[in-house]
């Protein structure tokens, strides 16, 4: 198999990291809890992409396992946070704080 040009991969990495950065920005800005959760979820998915790039770059399939695990388990955090949001607010604990 012929190697992919390094530049292609680097562009890929740059774009993916850019996506992560934007998600991070959204995470910081909020404004609502679900916004932050979405941002975190997006990051997880981006890491899967990153693992794909790492796989090609290193030529080692080991990183696909990372992606596999993440694809399967990553959304658990999203679910937990989403449930927290829902319950916490339905308990009316903190509308005034976290959802701002």
């Amino acid at each position, binding site marked *: 198999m012929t190697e992919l040009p390094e530049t292609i991969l680097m562009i890929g990495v740059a774009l993916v990291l850019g996506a992560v950065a934007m998600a991070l920005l959204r995470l910081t800005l909020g404004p609502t809890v679900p916004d932050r959760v979405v941002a975190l979820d997006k990051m997880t998915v981006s890491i899967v992409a990153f693992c794909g790039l790492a796989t090609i770059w*290193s030529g*080692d399939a*080991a990183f696909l396992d990372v992606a596999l695990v993440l694809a399967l388990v990553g959304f658990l955090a999203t679910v937990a946070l989403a449930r927290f949001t829902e319950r916490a607010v339905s308990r009316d604990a903190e509308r005034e704080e976290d959802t701002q």
Partner: protein
Amino acid sequence: MEPLLAITIGILVAAAVYLMLARNVLRFIFGLVLISNAANLTIFVAGGLTAGAPPLIPAGAEAPVDLVANALPQALVLTAIVIGFGLFAFALVLMFRAYTTLGTLYSDDMRVAEPRPEPKDAP
């Protein structure tokens, strides 16, 4: 990369320490997560960094054909991560229980084991 990571770890530690010094023990927990990560990174960095070569022996080979990453620190970090998780989990539950039992997360108000001295104690 190592120097950059050294700085990153320093910042992680600083953030962690600041959080651990907070009144609210929940922030201590956050700090604990950060500082655990910092400690794990420390081991990882101290063991030397090798990019793109996981410590796996390819099928058919007796040993890694060319340079692969230092496996020992990885094993140590893995152990430390799991231990760290165990400690974190207990600490979290403890703080949780502290709130449900003592009614506060503010360490300044946790004065059951060491009550404030009454004035009569003063010399």
